[in-house]
């Protein structure tokens, strides 16, 4: 027993020392750790999403090393669902394991607020290459890396919520293909016709739509886009709830109404299910992240469709313009890194014109630079996709179509996800769900010290 008592004491002491240690990291040398030499290379570690960590390690790093052979880069992958807490834990250590961290669109304010990220336009500017063209970035993806007036991260994998459509099913139903001008009213009128019997056996076997409907933080992005495209924001400039009104109810109701034209069981659709339904030719449209285009229209092993069958455009328009929703992965540098120069060199290279064209052409990653978007992509199928991306970027820019730029963004999305799910399954009406969500978000923001 005495032993365990001593252990308790030791554990408690440990706890105290842990809190006491704020900054024991040694000073970084003036050259930012340098870029390494053949004799003593510099090593940096990157924490990324498992979905592309290995791809980066195997294809991107060797290409980078052709130019910078003395910077050794190792990329660790973390499963998406727990990447944010894992990154937060790693970032807040006195001597961080990782020099470069990646974040999804809504995480950047949370990561930045820990104080663990460098301001890329100030802290590392002395190592910024003269040819690194900040102005060439499209403002929409670049904004994903900004918070509180600073540029904490740069876009490495851009993405947008867009509308995919199956041209064959549109033709079969005798409906004109959607354009950027198609409104939600027009879309719903078409949707009725797009629920159809394609093989003439008397049973409906194709539906109009598949998208996120289940309880998931990404599900509300669909009606958030509808809301934004009507010129209404989720939170106003004073960070007060601005969706607890007719516009909010209408937006959520639009999302709920889509369910009527979706396949049976669509209320459980998350990311994979609408994708599979669309790839199988079961749904005429799909509101989905653009990055799935290659697997949906090009890769024969994963899809029954061909590039000429698949159209890509913005979401139907509201009163203020067409819709899209930003989902950009961006990367930043850990404040306590010992190798800021090498880390920034690596990041600059991936996000340079050269690096971006390489990732776009080799990995199929969507670009963030206007020069890449306006250039000619290596793959033929990519040209119309880039056009849709440009239109999407413009729509996002115009109506601020992104998740709240708050450190509490994910907590807000959780609340919206729950209430959206209640509305989808009929446990609440759209009014009740919006009202409840507004109340909970107000409560949350109040508890975090925002004046409400």
């Amino acid at each position: 027993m005495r032993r365990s008592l001593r252990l308790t004491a030791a554990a408690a002491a440990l706890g105290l020392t842990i809190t006491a240690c704020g900054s024991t990291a040694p000073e970084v040398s003036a050259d930012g750790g340098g870029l390494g030499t053949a004799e003593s290379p510099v090593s940096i570690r990157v924490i990324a999403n498992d979905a592309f960590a290995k791809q980066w390690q195997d294809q991107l790093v060797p290409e980078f090393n052709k130019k910078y052979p003395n910077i050794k880069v190792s990329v660790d992958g973390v499963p998406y669902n727990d990447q944010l807490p894992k990154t937060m834990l790693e970032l807040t250590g006195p001597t961080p394991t990782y020099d470069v961290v990646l974040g999804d669109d809504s995480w950047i304010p949370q990561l930045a607020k820990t104080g663990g990220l460098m301001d890329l336009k100030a802290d590392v500017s002395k190592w910024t290459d003269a040819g690194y063209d900040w102005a060439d970035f499209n403002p929409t993806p670049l904004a994903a890396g900004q918070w509180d007036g600073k540029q904490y991260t740069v876009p490495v994998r851009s993405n947008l919520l867009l509308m995919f459509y199956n041209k064959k099913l549109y033709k079969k139903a005798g409906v004109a293909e959607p354009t950027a001008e198609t409104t939600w009213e027009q879309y719903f009128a078409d949707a009725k016709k797009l629920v159809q019997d394609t093989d003439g056996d008397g049973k409906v076997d194709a539906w109009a739509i598949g998208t996120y409907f289940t309880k998931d933080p990404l599900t509300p992005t669909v009606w958030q886009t509808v809301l934004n495209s009507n010129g209404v924001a989720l939170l106003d400039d004073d960070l007060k709830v601005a969706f607890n009104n007719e516009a909010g109810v209408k937006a959520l109701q639009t999302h709920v109404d889509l369910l009527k034209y979706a396949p049976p069981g669509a209320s459980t659709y998350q990311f994979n299910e609408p994708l599979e339904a669309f790839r199988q030719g079961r749904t005429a449209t799909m509101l989905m992240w653009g990055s799935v285009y290659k697997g949906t229209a090009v890769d024969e092993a994963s899809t029954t469709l061909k590039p000429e069958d698949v159209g890509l455009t913005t979401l139907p328009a509201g009163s203020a313009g067409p819709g899209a929703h930003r989902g950009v992965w961006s990367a930043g540098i850990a404040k306590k890194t010992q190798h800021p120069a090498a880390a920034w060199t690596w990041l600059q290279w991936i996000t340079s014109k050269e690096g971006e064209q390489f990732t776009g052409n080799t990995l199929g990653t969507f670009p963030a630079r206007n020069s890449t978007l306006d250039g000619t992509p290596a793959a033929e199928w990519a040209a119309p996709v880039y056009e849709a991306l440009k239109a999407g970027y413009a729509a996002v820019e115009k109506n601020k179509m992104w998740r709240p730029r708050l450190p509490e963004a994910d907590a807000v999305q959780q609340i919206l996800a729950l209430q959206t799910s209640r509305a989808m399954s009929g446990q609440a009406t759209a009014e009740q769900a919006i009202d409840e969500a507004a109340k909970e978000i107000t409560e949350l923001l109040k508890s975090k010290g925002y004046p409400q």
Partner: protein
Amino acid sequence: MSVSTRTPRAGADKAPARGSGPKTAQRFRLGEPGTAWLFMTPALVLLAGMLLYPIFYTLWVSFSDFDLALFEPVGWVGWKNYEMVLRDPGFLESLKVTGIYLVIALPLQMILGFAIAFLLNVEWRGRGALRALFLIPMVVAPVVAGGVWRMLLDPLWGVVNYTFGLVGIGPVEWIGDPTLAMVSMILIDTWRWTPFVVLIAAAGIMALPGDVYEAAKSDGAGRWQTLWRITLPLLVPVMAAAFVVRWLGAVKMFDIALAATRGGPGNATNVVNLYIYEKGFRSLEFGSASSMATIVLIITIVLTYFLFSISRRLENRW
């Protein structure tokens, strides 16, 4: 039985009611408490060493503001986090959901598990292989299991609804409907964990002394009588242990709910550990998550103690 006078812990004497060897053990008990602690030491040191600080930390966080920049609790806020949590309808709902799930799933798994264990106990060549194969549902990673079941139950392409459709039923919204989502979650959990009960029950049945049956048979006891009067009473300790272990596992369940239903629709299948997990790891609300964890810890301890007394009483009754 006269043995109950030997030690105050009658439970310890509940050796199977077999024969009556000479009770010579008395003299070896001298100095036993010391040996007993020696036997307990490795487990206690491991548990105390690994758990005391985390529990202390959780308590501390639950009474503080949590600073995400340091990942440390700062400032004492008293009961504020607890007050917020107790006013949180989602948390209370998740406790209710957990209760419903436990009350249905646990007895179901216990009964099914012991019944199947008896079934698998018949002596034949394939017995060992069946028992080994029966473990598989437990081994499939929860994420994969949840996904596979989602596919099986999908109204559009799922095999289950396809089969139902052949006889004109459906399509049934197994996961989209709040009530059926709970049914599905219990179904998947039962599929996954009944094999554990089977594993333990089979081992318990195996360990039963054979001569008891011979005695029973020579007394002319029927099968049901043998089962009720001899087999089941002898299995009580194993049953109780399997139940307690399953109970503790089930209280913490969140992986299957996350993979299969995501706690939805609404909060229909949002078990409390999933709720805490999402509060902590998705919303990064570690203060409330820690208060919830503490509340759940206390409730679990109280209920575990309750179950533990019942099981000891049961062990002693037979």
